[in-house]
């Protein structure tokens, strides 16, 4: 399975941060999840999910705008010896205190979510699987009006997702209702 791992930055690209648009849905609205690697033969196969997320009838994923340079995915290794896994942290800031984002915060604070997060290099990461959702943990970057007139008014959020392994998501994102 092991192979040499070179620098391998295609066209020299390796921009940090995440896309200004991420995608979200309720965990309970997912019908089918992409599959984890089954008997992977290469390291590449071990690092990618197979298939696309599919929603229940009448459900779809939705977009969330993020202020540039405020979104981050952080993959945190956790656990004791022989018990290692990962916690994926998604932190973001959405500008403004419009009713729709306040309503979103009201809904997600105690609910189970799924996110698809594109980074700035075309890689997608799925937060959520058949057994574990992404959950809200805090208002990262602050939630409110800001203190100064030159400050930033809006909603910061942080979500976490616990996973045994890290994978890229190479499937589709359904922005139209499933039938």
């Amino acid at each position, binding site marked *: 399975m092991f192979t040499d791992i070179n620098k391998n930055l295609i066209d020299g690209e390796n921009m940090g941060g995440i896309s200004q648009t991420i995608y979200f849905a309720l965990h309970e609205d997912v019908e*089918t999840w992409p599959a984890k690697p089954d008997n992977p033969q290469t390291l590449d196969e071990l690092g990618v999910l197979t298939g696309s997320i599919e929603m229940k009838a009448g459900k779809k994923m939705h977009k969330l705008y993020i202020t540039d340079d405020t979104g981050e995915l952080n993959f945190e290794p956790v656990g004791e010896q022989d018990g290692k896994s990962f916690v994926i942290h998604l932190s973001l800031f959405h500008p403004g205190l419009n009713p729709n984002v306040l309503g979103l915060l009201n809904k997600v604070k105690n609910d189970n979510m799924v996110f698809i997060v594109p980074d700035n290099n075309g890689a997608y990461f799925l937060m959520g699987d058949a057994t574990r959702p992404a959950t809200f943990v805090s208002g990262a970057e602050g939630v409110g009006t800001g203190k100064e007139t030159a400050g930033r008014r809006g909603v910061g959020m942080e979500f976490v997702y616990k996973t045994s392994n890290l994978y890229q998501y190479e499937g*589709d*994102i359904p*922005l*139209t209702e*499933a039938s």
Partner: protein
Amino acid sequence: MNWQKYFNLKKIKPGIVITRLHGPIDFSNPNIPLEKMIDLFENDSPYLELTPYGEQQIYGTPPPPTDKPIPVEEGHDLPPKEADTPQKGDTPSINKPKKKNPVRANPPRADISPHHKT
């Protein structure tokens, strides 16, 4: 060329899906290039299935033989249809689900250029 003659949309209502291969695709648009749809299908898009017409035109699969009704007199059991009795070496029906990665080197794909008359 209307791709909807070659593919049925399944599992979603016609609308936008962000595909990894070709970015956002609006499946309510009948004018999506057929080559793009074939590419999606051959890369296991969960939303596309071939129509019989599409299977014939794209992959050159011959149409299935038509079943002629067998006349039966009252009181007699229906004889088994040939299709109900599996025979070794039967050609699979075109309506069976396609295998993953259905790109076939043999037979070659039928010409589906814009000038191909359908």
